[in-house]
C-alpha cells in the first residue's frame, strides 16, 4: 500500500485503469457488439486522476514540470492526450475515441514504466527556475499529446474509410464516427497542435535569442523539423492538396516523428552543460 503512495505507484495504477479501458472496450465490442461510453469515460477519468497525482508528486520532487527524462516525457505525452480527450471527447460524441485514447495512454504509460533505464536519472531544477522555459517545454509536450490524439483520429478515419470502401459496415465499424466528422476533428486537432507548438517555439526562441548556449542545436533542429512538417501538412490540407487517406497517413507520420524526436530532445539534456542532478530512482 505504501508503494502505491510513490509517484510510480500512482502512475502504475493510472496505467492499469487505461488498460481497463482497452480491456472493457474490447470485451464490450466482442461480446455485446456495443460500446459503453459512460464506463469508458469514467475509467479514463479515474486513470487521469491517478496519473495527475503521480505526475504532481514527481513534479514536486524534481521542483518543476516533470519532463526530465524519457519516462517523464512519455508519461506527460499520455497525460496530455488524455487531458484533451476528457475536454473534447464529449463534444465529439465518440466513445471509440475514448477507447483508442485509453489504448494509447496504456501503451505509452506501460512502456515507460517497463523500461527502468528511462527513469534511472531524474533531473531536478531542469529549467533553472525559469518559468518561461518550463512553460515552453510543457507546451511543446502538450502539443505532442495533441498529435497523439490526431494520430488516433487518423487511425479511426482509415478504419472508417476502409469499412465503407470494402462495404463491411457492421460490427465494431458501426461505432466509428462518420468520415466527415473525422475529417473535421482531424483538421481541428492539427490546427490546435500547430498553434500550441508554434506558441511553445516562440517562447523558447525568445529565451534562446538571449542566451544561444542555453539550448542544444540538435534539439532545436529536431523540434523545428517536427513543427515545419506539421505546418506543411496543415498548409497542404487547407489548400486541398492532402486529403482523406493521405492526410490521415501524414498525421500518423507526424505523430511518429514527434515521438521519435523525444529521444534527441531528452539526450540533449544530458550534455555536460546542462544543470542536472542525478537522483536514485524511487523504489
Amino acid at each position: 500500500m505504501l508503494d502505491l503512495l510513490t509517484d510510480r505507484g500512482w502512475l502504475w495504477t493510472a496505467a492499469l485503469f487505461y488498460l481497463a479501458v482497452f480491456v472493457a472496450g474490447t470485451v464490450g465490442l466482442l461480446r455485446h457488439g456495443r460500446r459503453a461510453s459512460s464506463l469508458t469515460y469514467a475509467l479514463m477519468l479515474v486513470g487521469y486522476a491517478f496519473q495527475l497525482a503521480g505526475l504532481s508528486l514527481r513534479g514536486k520532487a524534481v521542483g518543476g514540470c516533470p519532463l526530465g527524462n524519457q519516462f517523464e516525457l512519455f508519461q506527460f505525452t499520455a497525460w496530455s492526450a488524455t487531458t484533451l480527450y476528457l475536454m473534447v471527447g464529449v463534444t465529439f460524441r465518440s466513445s471509440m475515441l475514448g477507447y483508442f485514447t485509453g489504448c494509447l495512454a496504456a501503451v505509452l504509460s506501460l512502456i515507460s514504466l517497463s523500461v527502468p533505464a528511462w527513469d534511472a536519472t531524474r533531473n531536478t531544477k531542469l529549467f533553472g527556475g525559469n518559468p518561461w522555459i518550463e512553460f515552453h517545454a510543457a507546451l511543446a509536450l502538450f502539443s505532442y499529446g495533441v498529435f497523439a490524439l490526431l494520430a488516433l483520429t487518423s487511425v479511426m478515419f482509415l478504419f472508417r474509410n476502409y469499412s465503407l470502401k470494402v462495404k463491411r459496415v457492421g460490427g465494431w465499424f458501426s461505432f466509428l464516427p462518420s468520415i466527415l466528422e473525422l475529417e473535421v476533428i482531424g483538421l481541428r486537432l492539427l490546427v490546435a497542435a500547430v498553434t500550441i507548438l508554434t506558441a511553445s517555439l516562440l517562447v523558447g526562441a525568445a529565451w534562446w535569442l538571449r542566451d544561444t548556449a542555453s539550448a542544444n542545436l540538435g534539439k532545436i533542429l529536431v523540434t523545428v523539423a517536427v513543427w515545419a512538417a506539421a505546418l506543411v501538412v496543415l498548409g497542404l490540407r487547407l489548400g486541398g492538396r492532402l486529403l482523406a487517406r493521405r492526410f490521415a497517413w501524414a498525421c500518423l507520420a507526424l505523430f511518429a516523428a514527434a515521438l521519435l524526436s523525444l529521444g534527441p530532445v531528452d539526450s540533449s539534456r544530458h550534455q555536460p552543460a546542462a544543470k542536472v542532478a542525478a537522483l536514485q530512482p524511487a523504489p
Partner: protein
Amino acid sequence: MSQPNVFVVGANHHVAPIAVRERLTLNPEQATGLQHDLAGIAGLKEFTIVNTCNRIEIYGVAASSDVAAAVQAAFCRRQRFATEEFEQFRLELRNQSAVGHLLEVAAGLDSQMVGETEIFGQVKEAYAAAQERGLTGPVLNRIFQKAFQSAKLARSQTGITEGQISVANVAVELAANIFGNLEQTRVLLLGAGDIGEKTAKAFRSRGAGSLVVANRRMERAMELASELGASALPFGQHEGRLGEFDIVVGSTSAPETVVSAQATTAAMRHRPARPLFFIDLALPRDIDPAVATLENVFLYNLDDLAKIAAENLTARTAEIAKCRALLGGRAEALWQHVAPKLTGGSGGSPGAYEAGRQPAP
C-alpha cells in the same frame, strides 16, 4: 367458472394471412364503435385495443373467464365476421402469457420486421387513447407502463433493434456513416422509380438538407419533386452539376450508365474535401462502377444494400432468444405483482374497482 383474469384476444400476422387481416383491421370509426360496444360488456373491467396493419389485439381485465368470449363476439359482430371463421385465426392468451405477449409486441419482437420500433409508438398511442377515455385501470396501467419500460430495456440491452433492414434505410444509414448529420447534405435523385422515391422519402424523414429530382420526363420530375418537397432539375444537367450534391441516388430505367467516372472526377475537383456518396438502385446500373476507385467517393449498388440489410436481419434474429429471455423474466415479475391485485379487485365492490379505473396521473 368465475376467475378474474388478464387476457388478450385478436389476430395478427402470425396467425392470419393478409387477406383476413384486411377484413379485421378497424378504421377510426369502427374502433370508436368497438370501444363503445366493449364498454357495455359486464365483467370487462379494463381494456385497450391495439389496432395496426398487422394486428388487432384487445387487451382486457376480466372479472370472469367467459368475458374474453364476449369481447370476441362483440368484435366479430362489429366486423361482420363469422365467429367460427375468426376462431381459425384467433390469438387468445391469458394472464402471464398475455402480459408476456404485450411485452414482446411493444419491444418489436413479435413484429413482422423483427425489432422495428414503429410498433412501440402504436402501442403507446393505443394505450394513451384508452387511458384518456378512462378505459384502463390499475391493472392495465401497470402492465402497459411496465411493457414500455421493458421494451426500452430490451432495445438497450440487446441488439434487437440494431441495424437497418430495408434497402432505403440502409442507404440512409450509410449516408450517416459518411456525413454524420444529414441536415447539411444535398441529395440528387436520378429517375422517378418506386425504390428511388422510397429512398428519397427515407432521406427526407432523416432530415436531409435539400432534395433535387432529375428525370427524363420533366413533368414527372416536377410531380415527384412537389410530392417530396424537393426541386426538379432537367435530366441533361445532372452530370455537369454533380459537384453540387453529396448524395446521388440512381434509379432510372436507362439501358446504360448515366453518371460516368469522368464526370465524377471533374465533380470531385470542385469538392475534394467533401465525400460523394452514390447509391445505385437501378438495373441496369446507373453509375459507372469505376467511380468506386476514386478518393472520397463511395458507391453502393442494390446488391450491396440488400446484403447489408440481410446481415442486419440475421444479427437481429440472433438476438431474439436473448430478448425473449429478458422479457420473459420481466413478464413473470410483473405478473407476480399484478395477479394479487386482480383477485383483490374482483373481491371488492364494483364501485371500489371503478374508483381505481381512472386515468393514471
